[in-house]
């Protein structure tokens, strides 16, 4: 059964259609890439699944239950983790605090005013940090982390909630090529191990064709192609509006 089912999702801004009648589904452990030109409606689609935007039409089902139009918080509670295009972590906390924070929220322990945070869910937090390879940096401030490490921290924070679905908006934006593939391989491993469905947008074709199981192509708010790497690469419409000749994107 699919983790995420999106049906007939539509959204207009001021009379201009940003997304029109988009439908797709993601299975457990599957990595689905959403690509398309700038302004094709990828972010709008993403934000409707994540709860930042309310769709005009259509439905979003998570494990069969509707989450259409829920607030980002409710969607998180329902089992959706997310990472942001521009990294967003809690800057006034250490790396470990960041994960502890997510764990406290997951265990519904936020509204406690007395017992200090220090020492709570330590083992679980450290295990998550170890999974993304950040155990050595647990006590550092997030502000001094390298960019690639911040991205991995975001992944650990998102996984703390034991999500069924992971939304990643341009997860490798701003990273060096070698780090990009590393981060997505890590995501791939976590997704497979835990059966998490992953939906991500991306502009790096190396990453897209390397790690995704399936690719959706959006143009002007409409799905124009869907399939595996080879069929997308061979699709003349996709070449025309998005991929180009491949001269500047590694021959894809």
């Amino acid at each position, binding site marked *: 059964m699919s983790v995420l089912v999106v049906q007939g999702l539509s959204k207009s801004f001021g009379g201009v259609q940003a997304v029109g009648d988009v439908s797709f589904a993601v299975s457990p452990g599957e990595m689905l890439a959403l690509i398309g030109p*700038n302004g094709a409606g990828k972010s709008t689609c993403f934000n409707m699944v994540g709860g930042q935007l309310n769709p005009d039409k259509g439905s979003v089902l998570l494990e069969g239950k509707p989450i259409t139009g829920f607030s980002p918080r409710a969607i998180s509670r329902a089992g959706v983790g997310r990472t942001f295009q521009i990294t967003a972590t809690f800057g006034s906390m250490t790396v470990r605090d960041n994960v502890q924070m997510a764990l406290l929220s997951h265990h519904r322990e936020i509204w406690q005013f007395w017992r200090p945070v220090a020492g709570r869910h330590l083992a679980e937090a450290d295990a998550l940090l170890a999974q993304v390879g950040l155990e050595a940096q647990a006590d550092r401030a997030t502000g001094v982390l390298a960019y690639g490490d911040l991205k991995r921290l975001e992944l650990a924070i998102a996984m703390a909630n034991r999500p069924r679905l992971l939304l990643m908006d341009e997860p490798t934006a701003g990273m060096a090529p070698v780090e990009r593939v590393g981060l997505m391989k890590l995501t791939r491993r976590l997704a497979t191990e835990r059966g998490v469905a992953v939906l991500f947008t991306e502009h790096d074709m190396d990453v897209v064709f390397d790690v995704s199981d399936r690719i959706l192509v959006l143009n002007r708010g409409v799905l124009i192609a869907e399939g595996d790497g080879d069929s997308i690469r061979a699709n003349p419409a996709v070449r025309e509006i998005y991929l180009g000749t491949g001269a500047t994107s590694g021959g894809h």
Partner: protein
Amino acid sequence: MLLSVEGLNTHYGRAHILQDMALTIAAGEVRVLLGRNGAGKSTTMKSIIGLVRPSAGRIAFDGVEIAGEEPHRIARRGLGYVPEDRRVFADLTVMENLEVGRQAARGGMRPWTPERLFELFPNLGRMRDRPGERMSGGEQQMLTIARTLMGNPRLVLLDEPSEGLAPVIVEQMANAILALKSEGLTILLAEQNLHFAGGVADSATVVEKGRVVWTGTMKALRADEAARTKYLAV
């Protein structure tokens, strides 16, 4: 040398970002700064244009020492800066954005006008009165470059112009840069997309943790399999 940077050191708070950074660019050359995120590419550019004050080092532009000068003075000497993440003025129209960048023409160069820029970026010519916020990412990126060219710079610092753009737009960007190069413009490019850089640059400087670890021509970099594997992992 049009620009020569020597022993440049820059700190953010206590973090030592640039450590004895050095590079040179001859007039008419396109040099690319390669390196991963956080290696110091953007900081190098910001230090050159004066947005970040270097703690030590020399930056000579056309023989004049400019390190420590204010950004607007450096810009007026003929140095253009195109930042990463496309900072167009969102409320201003295309024409107004260009107006902000306008500086007097420099001797010996054909001055840039909006009309000439629209030949280079035909898309922009079709949306003269559109505010920046209603343009797509690719159009915004072209506008930031056009806006900088309005200052008639001799050297342009281009910070990751391909980042976050669709491959087909990146191709257009590469063609625009080649066109600028043929006009005789000198360009320092920061990139992570080696495919893109390879198509436009003459020479490369690879940085890692704020230091130069490799420098040479693009041709030499293509031949140096070991360097590419070691520093760029491709």
